[in-house]
């Protein structure tokens, strides 16, 4: 028993580090695999329906792809310059100091990440349950039960073994790519048979709205993956346009069997596609879409576990959250915390609105990160930058982010945005009480709690402080 020690963690860490030098091909594979979310299979919900010609639509498409690539390149510079994990957290820390970084981790740990985890699990559950309720919505109880089960399983799996977690991830990512390929190929076959109707093409921009945030969002975790790779910029420049091409091809596939209106009205586009094209094997599609949804949920376990861990390490959350399981070598406390919060979000009626309003907060922090890149060009000239993007790029993406933060607030002002801001700022209270002044009585409570939790979960602080 006692021979299991943290030395292993270090060894495997080095191996993983070594392994980050992935080849160009696998780098591209990772990018394509992670960016394509389950949205393209389910429904183009955030769509503003207005018909336009093919030309302008494709231009907008290309513009989105380019913007996303630029955003990813900015993250590439940041990621190679500050090689620390924890999403935007270290970048904000480096650029603006601890308070914005703290607010970022506060908001994302308490609201953004767990609620999106909950949402993904809920949509997985809804997807699975819907198969059994042909003509109506499944009762909330069922959806919530299954979603809670999914959260528990995923957090347990990830807390038990990193290997198991990444194995699960590989399987589901592969499943996703398989179904993407199936849809694209059958679309091409149909196209070859001359099924596409020209008028349907105009709706390619349907997906555009959801494309751009998704790209940047996920480039965060990609960059974790291909960190330090010399191929990184190349992988981004090839990978992201490739995703754009995938999206366009999937759209073309959909349009071969559906009219734009049908596409907009379909509950699950890929399922409709499957029903019409792959019958009698149409069950393949919902199965694989469910896989890809659960894979996405599993992916958030990976990235968020790390985020919580970093926040704990910095003393921005309970220290115990940064501890590592002695026997399993996983950030178990962080994952358990994540799972518990996500389960709590499952319970109330509808958290979709919460997520919608907080999406502006996500853009706020993206914008700040891009701004941070600009700021550090002047304040931290000394840092080595293996990748250095032209300064126009961060300026452009910063402006775009500002626009994306302000656009929903100006077009549809709602009190909820104010509540979001208040919530974000309320993090300051905790910051000053527990982080900045470190009141004695807070320590008195947290110390025994930490101690007992440590013994309960068998977790210890990471051996080496990276700082």
């Amino acid at each position: 028993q006692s021979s299991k020690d943290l030395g292993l963690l270090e060894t495997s860490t080095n191996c993983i580090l070594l392994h980050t030098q992935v080849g160009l091909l696998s780098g591209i594979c990772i990018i394509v695999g992670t960016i394509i979310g389950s949205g393209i299979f389910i429904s183009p919900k955030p769509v503003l329906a207005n018909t336009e010609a093919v030309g302008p639509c494709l231009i907008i498409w290309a513009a989105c792809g380019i913007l996303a690539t630029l955003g990813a390149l900015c993250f590439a510079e940041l990621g190679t310059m500050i090689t620390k994990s924890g999403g935007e957290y270290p970048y904000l820390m480096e650029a603006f100091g601890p308070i914005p970084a703290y607010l970022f981790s506060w908001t994302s740990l308490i609201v953004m990440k767990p609620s999106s985890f909950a949402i993904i699990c809920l949509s997985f559950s809804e997807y699975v349950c819907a198969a059994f309720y042909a003509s109506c919505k499944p009762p909330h109880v069922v959806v919530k039960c299954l979603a809670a089960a999914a959260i528990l399983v995923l957090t347990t799996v990830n807390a038990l073994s990193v290997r198991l977690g990444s194995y699960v991830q590989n399987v589901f990512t592969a499943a996703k790519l398989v179904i993407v390929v199936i849809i694209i190929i059958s679309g091409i076959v149909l196209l070859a048979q001359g099924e596409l109707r020209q008028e349907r093409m105009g709706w390619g921009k349907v997906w555009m709205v959801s494309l751009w945030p998704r790209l940047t969002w996920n480039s965060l975790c990609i960059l974790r993956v291909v960190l330090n790779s010399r191929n990184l910029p190349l992988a981004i420049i090839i990978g992201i346009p490739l995703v754009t091409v995938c999206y366009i091809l999937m759209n073309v596939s959909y349009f071969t069997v559906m009219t734009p209106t049908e596409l907009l009205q379909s509950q699950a586009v890929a399922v409709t596609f499957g029903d019409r094209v792959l019958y009698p094997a149409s069950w393949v599609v919902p199965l694989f879409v469910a896989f890809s949804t659960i894979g996405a949920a599993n992916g958030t376990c990976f990235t968020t576990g790390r985020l919580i861990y970093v926040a704990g390490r910095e003393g921005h959350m309970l220290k115990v959250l940064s501890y590592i399981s002695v026997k399993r070598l996983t950030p178990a406390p962080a994952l358990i915390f994540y799972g518990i919060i996500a389960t709590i979000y499952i319970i109330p009626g509808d958290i979709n609105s919460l997520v919608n309003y907080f999406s502006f907060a996500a853009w706020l922090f993206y914008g700040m990160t891009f701004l941070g890149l600009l700021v550090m060009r002047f304040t931290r000239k000394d840092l080595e930058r293996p990748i250095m993007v032209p300064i126009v790029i961060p300026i452009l993406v910063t402006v775009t982010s500002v626009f994306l933060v302000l656009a929903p607030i100006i077009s549809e002002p709602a009190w909820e945005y104010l509540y979001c801001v208040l919530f974000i700022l309320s993090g300051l209270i905790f910051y000053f009480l527990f982080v900045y002044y470190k009141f004695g009585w807070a320590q008195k409570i947290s110390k025994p709690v930490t101690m007992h939790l440590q013994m309960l979960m068998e977790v210890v602080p990471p051996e080496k402080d990276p700082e």
Partner: protein
Amino acid sequence: MAAEQRKRDSVGMRMEGCRTNNGFVLNEDIAEPDPCEPGSSRDPPQPNAAAAVSVAASPEPGAQEPYAGMPKEVLFRFSGRARYRVPRELLFWLVVVAVCLLVAATVTIIAVSPKCLDWWQAGAMYQIYPRSFKDSDKDGNGDLKGIQEKLDYITTLNVKTVWITSFYKSSLKDFRYAVEDFQEVDPIFGTMKDFEDLVAAIHDKGLKLIIDFIPNHTSDKHTWFQLSRTRTGKYTDYYIWHNCTQENGITIPPNNWLSVYGNSSWHFDEVRKQCYFHQFLKEQPDLNFRNPAVQEEIKEIMQFWLAKGVDGFSFDAVKFLLEAESLRNEIQVNQSQSPDTVTNYSQLYHDFTTTQVGMHDIIRDFRQTMNQYSREPGRYRFMGTEASAESIGRTMMYYGLPFIQEADFPFNHFLAMLNTLSGNNVYDAITSWMENMPEGKWPNWKTGGPDTSRLTSRLGNQYVNAMNMLIFTLPGTPITYYGEEIGMGNILVTNSNESYNTNTLASKSPMQWDNSSNAGFSESNYTWLPTNSDYHTVNVNVQKMEPSSALKFYQDLSKLHASELLLSRGWFCLLRNDSHAVAYTRQMDGIDRVFIVVLNFGESSMLLNLQDMMAGLPTWLPVRLSTNPASKGSKVDTRGVPLERGEGLILEHNTDTLPHHQAAFRNKCFVSNRACYSGALDLLYSLC
């Protein structure tokens, strides 16, 4: 053991493909790159670890007490204690058990969930005669764009389905039966593009669309008929042709069969020199459904509309699909009558021209075609059949057999055919349907239609609200013909060059939207039928404003129907009948409330003693909804519920002894799809 496990771990990690590095990585920024060659990882990492441990030795190496942030050496001294180990194990297994329980709960709930109501069961249908609903292009005729303009109004009615009657390209001016091209919209209603837009708009509003389908016959202008009369290829047998003799302009038909509109149903065709058969007018030759090619053509047409997104069909005149091949003469009702004078349809028994063996097989075949389009979730295609003037037994045949699916329901015209009202005849109309309907099937109730006289004119306008209350509180799908929700009446059509039979136009007058000219139906100075003169008081705009209007009441009813499980899928128990009033209850297991509906269809006001009809009623019951706005929220005495002529009440009775469990109501209670409600979990289950 442990070393092996670790080895597998690290090897496994390196072998992983795309996502390996998303694994938990502790120190990415370790300064000294210590490349781990393949060999090194196979070695037990013990030495490394020991070094690491000594570096990170705890600040208090000799401490016996645990402390926050302790390293693993200290931790292991304590964490193995039962007081930590047991809860740890316990919590882990608790999580495992919780997952199992949650999955089990999910599976159980799914297993016991009753089949949920499909869209055609969930809400009312609204039948539109498109030529009279709304004119968008100022030509005096309603059109598809007009319907699209008025979809907002339709949504305020809380109906689920829009039913548009025939709009196919047709030669007959009545636009109902003689279709020239089944795959074209008649120019008077707009274009195919208009139709596609309308489908999209209807679906955008969350509504469904069903359309008429007329398989029995075509127009004599239809290409098929033109090709058939010249004996062109496969079209030769598309219609029912028989040799007949013609002498001096007088045709001697093959048999005595009569057309629905009177006189022989055979007509001599000068081109083909043969007689063709027509159940209706001579301009409407019957298709030969014994020809498989015709059946295929019809299926293709169905597929054409299903692919356009239509959610279902109302199959018209299906009982006429087949005729006896033997051509035997039909039997006269009055045997003593001279055969030469038998010209009226009602003077024969139609044993050889209606509901022939094989007709249901054709409809079941149609159902199969529709099922191919029903596979997508939420896209079930509805099939209704028109079976007017059929006996109840024959009507029920359209529901199909336990293992053979046919129509979802045959439309129920029995209420629409009542020409006088009384408690007894409404009671009979209800019981005959409910008792004859096969188990598990879904009823429906229709108060009017294009071919029947308007309710107000047929029964009197004091019964409008009561009839609407009736169809919304009976189990099943209520079907409302346009204008019935505001109590529109018949018009008098004195001279019209539009139709063969002016009587059938009476209930097709333009929809009354507002006070402006043509009742807001059209901006042209001519409308194809005159507007009813009462449109200044009976119109949508006025009734929208008026709290006690028929329209408001209709909206209240449809809202109640949508929100109350009792009404949408609860039990239905008929109370003892009364010659003037009808009384019944709606209830559901798991909901401790019973709706008691009482309606006075008699000629005068009355006092109804509910206590006689149902045991255990309290003396006073609150009124949930009433046709008389004044009594809303009041209480009534159950020993004598005062009911005005045409008044209806929904009473709410809080009890947990539900009528369908009581012996007194045995054989008086019906439910289509048994389900119980659990308030705690907010779900329905079927095991009860």
